[in-house]
């Protein structure tokens, strides 16, 4: 879908994965994540297999590894939590470089780290290859209740307008000698937030009137795009099927 509505995580490439219908990609990533999450953490080979799948997928989608890893840092807070577990855990302990680590804690940490990373990478790949508009469209086609997709659509449209309102109000404050360094001027900021809220509320009402004037009765018209062809479903089924295969293989082999 042409220009615009790229979000910060979107990577504009003319790749194969980019051209897949959004609902197909959403389902594939969801199923993949489920398979990853239900895999017992001790099946180490399975996780290596999943990582390989992600790597192949990233290559097909033409998303550079470095780009992906940089954005994967959003999971760092969780990784930090995971690092604490081996020290804090109970039960049997092992000595490693003079540190006493709980085995149970080690498994817990691995569990969080491996599954978290794979889930984040898969979601990032979805985001990198799908615009916001298409994501919402995909959810809509997957029969996600229209309240959610409508709210998301409006947010998508008005987040810019609101940000612009906020920016204009800030400039107007600054032009009249407002200097947020002084504590007693915090009031102006608080009032600003309040009036931003009021403005958006009133705008919401005006937008609603304008929509009703054009015949809106509570449901957004469905975009008349074709459903995803079976070929695309088959193609993207490769991801969850391969991961399920790996999970089963790992279960049989160990």
């Amino acid at each position, binding site marked *: *879908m*042409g*220009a*615009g*509505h790229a979000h910060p995580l979107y990577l504009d490439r003319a790749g194969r994965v980019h051209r897949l219908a959004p609902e197909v990609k959403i389902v594939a990533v969801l199923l993949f994540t489920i398979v990853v999450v239900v895999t017992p953490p001790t099946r180490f080979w399975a996780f290596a297999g999943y990582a390989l799948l992600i790597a192949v997928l990233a290559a097909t989608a033409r998303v550079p590894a470095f780009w992906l890893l940089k954005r994967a840092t959003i999971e760092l807070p969780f990784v930090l939590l995971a690092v604490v577990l081996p020290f804090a855990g109970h039960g049997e302990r092992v000595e490693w470089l003079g540190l006493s680590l709980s085995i149970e804690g080690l498994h817990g940490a691995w569990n969080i780290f491996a599954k978290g990373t794979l889930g984040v990478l898969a979601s990032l790949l979805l985001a990198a290859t799908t615009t*916001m*508009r298409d994501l919402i469209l995909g959810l809509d086609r997957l029969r996600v209740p229209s309240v959610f997709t409508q709210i998301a*659509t*409006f947010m*998508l*449209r*008005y987040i*810019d*307008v609101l940000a*612009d309102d906020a920016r204009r109000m800030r400039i107007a404050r600054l032009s009249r000698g407002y200097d947020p360094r002084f504590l007693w001027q915090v009031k102006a900021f608080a009032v600003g937030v309040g009036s931003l809220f009021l403005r958006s509320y009133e*705008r919401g009402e*005006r*937008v609603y*009137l*304008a*929509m*009703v*004037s*054009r*015949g*809106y*009765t509570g449901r*957004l*018209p469905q*975009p*008349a795009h074709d459903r995803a062809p079976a070929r695309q479903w088959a193609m993207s089924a490769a991801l969850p099927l391969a991961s399920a295969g790996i999970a089963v293989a790992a279960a049989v082999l160990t």
Partner: protein
Amino acid sequence: MIDVATPALNVSRLHYAYPDGRAALRGVDLTIAPGERVALLGPNGAGKTTLVLHLNGILHGGGGTVEVSGLPVTPGDRPAIAEIRRRVGIVFQDPDDQLFMPTVAEDVAFGPANSGVRGAELDARVDEALAAVGMSDHRDHVPHHLSFGQRRRVAVATVLAMRPEILVLDEPSSNLDPASRRELAEILESLPVTLLMVTHDLPYALELCPRSVILDTGRIAADGETAALLSDRELMRGHRLELPFGFDPAAAAASRADRS
């Protein structure tokens, strides 16, 4: 005015008070013939926007009737209201209120899609409406990233796509630069519809609308030829209407007559 034809718009003894008790309309009578272009003038707070919101049944319940090409606006009757909203297209003052879809094309498609148009016909409608306002190149753009004048034009397109019989515009020339203002006038002049235009821009009213109506404190205060109303100093001053410095309505009307 042709008496035999059903009027495009017939408003009769319309009253309205806002929930906080403020009376905004106190008995408005207005009849517009098909194909007429009428300017609705009046000071701030006169009730112009309130009147506009009655024309497609968004506001109602204060007494009086509104008829669009003979079809009465009955608030409870859903199919009738849907038909009224297809016939009466309202372009609101702030295009940001009107444009809410993620792309220009989707926004223009919103109205006709609500009245059941689908597929190739819907695409044709969108193309036609965008072409009419000269915005075909921007169909996949994000409304927010267009200039104000472009957004106003797209807002007009969203309503044109519904092929309304009556086009109602709330202050269409506000915030437009002179060139956009003129281009919008050319677009409006070329449309084969009945036009009701709320405006504070008196030269614009004179340019586009042969007839004007002055609304003040919820009542129609004057109704007549635009050039005549604008030249009546007493009347103008009495309703807080002021011409721009140096503007001579008689001369402007004469030059307009020459041009056409």
